[in-house]
């Protein structure tokens, strides 16, 4: 199949391009800035330099069978992230509606869930945020993208697969936000016995590539997490040893969440409903990062008839990724 990947210059998008090529698809990679490393990868990737928010998109969709939409604004304030993501998505979906594309794979996020009501295990019917903005600009953008994608699927009949990855990591990338907080040279591991819902970038990208072209129901939604559970304590330890720096100390989850609830209550009493706290002290944002949660990885594997390429923690640690060029 011919597949267009948006956000192909990003942390996840680069891997998706690579995994799609490895699976025999013809890939057109949409990037905002020219990226020679992408074009020189396996399978002769066609690179298109365009911005979803301003460039004409119909030419990029010519002859394309499926689109993987992974582009999102990641930095800036809540509104910048929301507007940057949603503007581009709206233009892309308008162009898809006028194109030969038959399948859309939308890369969403765990941030769409209402983590204060999810409970102990995540499943297909887990509640989403009723007020998208409570989760911040990124969560609001992802919820809005999902809604727009479902409307597109309903009005055009194209197949839609929504994939919600957990915390995406790589052995040398930035530390995901689900472990704790750095305090000087120390690292405070919050809820050290939890198994955070992680997915290695190679596994996540391969799941996305595997979803392209798979037949099944018209609209499907899956969570992506790695099958091997590993505690936050062990993960941070492995990371610190590898980087030969700092030390860690544990902060039990129930203590941290009680503290957060107390700070939230106190600030409401003192400042009223308009109060503003650092994001880690907002109960919902805290829960999104640190709530102990079970996620079943087998549904995705069964439904897509897919096996992750990296099946153990040590294999993930040893994996090398297609890295962005320096600068």
């Amino acid at each position, binding site marked *: 199949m011919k597949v267009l990947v948006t956000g192909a210059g990003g942390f996840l998008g680069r891997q998706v391009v690579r995994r799609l090529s490895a699976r025999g698809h013809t890939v057109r990679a949409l990037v*905002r800035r020219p990226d020679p490393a992408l074009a020189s990868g396996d399978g002769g990737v066609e690179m298109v330099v365009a911005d979803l928010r301003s460039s004409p998109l119909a030419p990029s969709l010519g002859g394309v069978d499926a689109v993987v939409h992974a582009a999102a604004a990641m930095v800036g304030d809540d509104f910048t992230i929301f507007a940057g993501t949603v503007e581009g998505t709206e233009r892309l979906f308008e162009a898809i509606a006028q194109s030969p594309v038959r399948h859309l794979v939308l890369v969403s996020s765990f941030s769409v869930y209402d983590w204060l009501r999810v409970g102990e295990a995540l499943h297909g019917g887990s509640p989403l945020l009723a007020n998208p903005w409570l989760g911040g600009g990124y969560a609001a953008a992802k919820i809005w993208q999902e809604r727009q994608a479902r409307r597109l699927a309903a009005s055009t009949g194209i197949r839609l697969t929504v994939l919600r990855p957990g915390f995406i990591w790589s052995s040398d990338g930035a530390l995901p936000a689900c472990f704790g907080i750095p305090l000087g040279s120390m690292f405070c591991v919050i809820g050290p016995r939890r198994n955070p819902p992680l997915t290695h970038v190679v596994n996540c990208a391969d799941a996305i590539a595997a979803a392209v072209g798979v037949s099944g129901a018209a609209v499907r939604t899956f969570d992506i997490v790695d099958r091997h559970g590993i505690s936050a304590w062990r993960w941070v330890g492995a990371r610190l040893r590898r980087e030969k720096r700092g030390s860690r100390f544990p902060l039990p989850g129930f203590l941290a969440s009680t503290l957060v609830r107390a700070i939230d209550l106190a600030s409401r009493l003192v400042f009223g409903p308009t109060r503003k706290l650092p994001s880690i002290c907002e109960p919902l944002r805290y829960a999104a990062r640190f709530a102990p949660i079970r996620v079943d990885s087998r549904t995705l594997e069964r439904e897509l008839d897919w096996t992750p390429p990296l099946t153990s923690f040590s294999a993930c640690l040893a994996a090398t990724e297609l890295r962005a060029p320096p600068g």
Partner: protein
Amino acid sequence: MAESTAEAFGVPSWFTDFERMLREAKPDVVHVTTPPASHFVLAHAALESGAHVFVEKPITTRAAELDVLGALARSRGRMLVENQNYLFNRTFRELVRRLELGELGELVHVDVVLNLDALGSGSRYTEPAATNPFAALRGGLVADFITHLCSLAVRLVGPHRRAHALWRKRDSSTPLSSDELHALVDAERGTAALHFSASAQPDTFHVVAHGTRMRMVAGLFEPLVASERLHSGPRPLLPVRNGMVLAQAHARAAIGGLWLKLAGRPMALEGLAELVRRTYVAIRQESPPPISLGHLLAVHQLEETLLEQEVRS
């Protein structure tokens, strides 16, 4: 985007066609919050439709366009207000009040200083030209802030007679023509120096009014109001006495500023709420607008004088 904004704020209807919105919703007041280059066309159409108009700064990108809008607003009997929000911060209003009471003596000079880390990681101002509304504007990054500097200065020293501007571009990686402005203004009631930098740190936004009897500073990011004055007694002790007063005022302002942030009421938005409130009161009571058309024109004539001196590379 329109639908999501309507949903977030509980607005019952939304449009993506401005003309259709004016026809169907028939608004009494239109707030124009789009990028600067579109302000003139939208504000013009809104005034034509009979609405009062409240426009984000800069109200227009050319002073000549403001003349057209001003004439239209006058002929239609409608209000034309620009969001010069910092004029309505409590601290600045206190400075104006004490100046008008004569506490500062005669006003000699005003410094307006804005240092803002606006080009850091993820900044919308660093976007490529195609998606950066300031890339094509005179003044580059400064175009988004020059109205604040000019409005505060004009409020204190009046319309300008002449002005000299020095423009700089320190960050070569952006598509912006300038990111720094230093200007000297000779005006009816005194002189003013305007400074904007996206590089000088830490962030600050303050106005210092130098009078013949007192020097007074008003913070616009922190609730700072402090003054140094002439006292009776030995002159060598003057700095000691004033220094202790200043130190107390700065400590109070720092703690007060943190308090306001935790309360979700940042200083940067305080003046906006007050300006919007006064605008709606004026519309209801059919009284003069909180910012006069004469003041608007004087501010933008100063802006035009400064912007004309920017040599684009």
